């Protein structure tokens, strides 16, 4: 029951009561599926189609089979970007979900003063657009009128510049963590709220401590939500675009045009006019994302069994 759609059992059971299948449901699902076909399915199909062609200077667009894929698989600019987002994923996602988990457990424990304030305040950054979040943090990182400059002045130190090539990935990681910790916290907290309270009372009667309640009741109850949050975070990491793209204005030397696979696709397509190769890179990245997300989901489900 830990797939992104854990409630499959619900509708399936009520179907038996409903009797014969009719087409009526399509009247309700049809509008969604029509637009979905236009903005999801058609572009996917078109992307696959585009990836099989190449624009030549002479002779126009020609069918090249899998040649673009060969090129992508051996393209160091692409794989560097993949490596970068993989590193980002490996470091940022555990930190973010770890903090989200601790805060969700703390709020759910009922042991905080001002619990509702905590819940809303930690969630608020989610409502801030990536553009604003990146501008804000970018300004604060800055040594000119940023907080970092202030700290340096006040303490007489010179902290390393977060917008230098070495640190900019961590700087982006911090922005993404800031943006999405609260959102993930809320997903986990919502999952904790539906744990039957009687379980806690039973645990208390059995003499279980706080820690035991967390490991024996709360964490197992959270597994499904954690898998969902992880899968969404993986997709998000592999899609990384907004934050590095906006930071480029502030740190053009640190963030290159092929910094992430998505930035690479964007610059191939809109600065280089290489639509076919851009489509290929997008397809390969889509396949990698799906494979990793699927593997994590399978693993998360197996652990539960």
């Amino acid at each position, binding site marked *: *029951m830990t*797939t*992104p759609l854990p*409630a499959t059992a*619900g*509708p399936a059971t*009520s179907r038996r*009561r*409903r009797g014969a*299948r*009719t087409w009526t449901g399509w*009247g*309700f*699902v049809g509008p*969604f599926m029509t*637009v*979905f076909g236009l903005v*999801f399915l058609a*572009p*996917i199909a*078109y992307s696959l189609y*585009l990836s099989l062609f190449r624009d030549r200077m002479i002779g126009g667009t020609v069918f090249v089979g899998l040649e673009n894929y060969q090129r992508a698989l051996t393209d160091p600019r692409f794989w560097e970007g993949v490596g970068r987002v993989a590193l980002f994923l490996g470091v940022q996602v555990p930190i973010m979900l770890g*903090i989200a988990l*601790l805060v969700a457990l703390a709020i759910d424990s*009922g*042991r*905080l003063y*001002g619990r509702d304030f905590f819940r809303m305040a930690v969630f*608020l*950054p*989610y*409502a*801030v657009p*990536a*553009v*604003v979040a990146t*501008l*804000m943090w970018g300004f604060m990182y800055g040594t*000119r*009128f940023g*907080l970092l400059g202030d700290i340096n002045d006040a303490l007489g130190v010179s902290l390393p510049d977060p917008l230098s090539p070495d640190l900019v990935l961590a700087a982006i990681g911090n922005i993404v963590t*800031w943006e999405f910790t609260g959102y993930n916290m809320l*997903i986990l907290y*919502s999952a904790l*709220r*539906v744990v039957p*309270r009687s379980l*806690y*009372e039973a645990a208390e009667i059995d003499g279980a401590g706080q820690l035991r*309640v967390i490991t024996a009741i709360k964490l197992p109850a959270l597994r*499904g939500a954690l898998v969902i949050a992880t899968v969404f975070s993986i997709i998000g990491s592999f899609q990384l*675009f*907004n934050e590095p*793209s906006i930071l480029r204005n502030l740190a053009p030397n640190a963030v290159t045009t092929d910094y992430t696979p*998505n930035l690479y*696709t964007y610059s191939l397509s809109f600065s280089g006019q290489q*639509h076919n190769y851009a489509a290929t890179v*997008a*397809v390969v990245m889509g396949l990698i*994302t799906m494979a990793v997300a699927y593997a994590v989901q399978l693993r998360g489900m197996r652990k539960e069994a």
Partner: protein
Amino acid sequence: MSAPAPTLSTTRSTPDGRARSAARLRAPRRRRHSADRPRRSVTLTLLTGLVLLYSLVPLVWLIVSATKTQEGLFGSFGLWFDGDFALWENITRTLTYDGGVFVRWLFNTLLYVVLGAGGATFLAVLGGYGLAKFDFPGRRAVLAVVIGAVAVPGTALAVPTFLMFSGLGLTNTPWAVIVPSLISPFGLYLMWVFTSEAVPTELLEAARIDGAGEARTFFRVALPLLGPGIVTVSLFTMVATWNNYFLPLIMIKDPDWYPLTLGLDAWNSQASTAGGEAIFDLVITGSLLTIVPLIAAFLLLQRYWQSGLAAGSVKE
């Protein structure tokens, strides 16, 4: 069947209150502090307070900075106010700079949100209801396709979507932003789970027996029960549309059709272009004006969307 208590989704009180009073009815408290009423902890509050600070300090910085002149931004400590309080002046200048283009961007954003997020919510409510309450040929395929497509990186679709929309002559028009915003797979999923819990099938059958058509049954019987779910989905689609950057970035070239996010980015990059005027004070004040409506919506409607999320999103 993982039958979640259907009352969760239809009651409008907060989940905490409900759970607590239910527990109290079941077992009378013997001690002052129990699993139900734990002792408050100063240490835990302080530790969690670190995350709270992390979340709020940038927002405080933004509010404080919006009150400063450009010189003040450079010359004063970031987290405290400068001598002259220039907030109102900054707001006026933000709204009037470059012939009031910020107001134009605000209206564009509102247009995209009303049509995009509004449409997305409507389609998700209809679709979620269809999936939850009807069995129809291809139902399983619909589920499989939608779930599968969610895993496809949205931005991976950008290039072909751009080329398709360009072929249809839709790029550089509002439709290029609105039409893709109409689809919210997360919203569909949320409404599907929410509907299966909040709308009893028996009620629908009763309405049909009384002779109501499908449309009437939906609008008169089901829709009124879906309130918290609809609020939740519309807030989340609203955030997605209001904050959207990538889609308008590729679709819109004409600054007259920019949403706020793209406009702010343009103002910010203006400083690094040759001969461009640096307007960091306006970027900062504009940023503050951009986030205020969403934060207000979340705070004002929190009772509804939080119960909708608890009932719908991640039930075991």
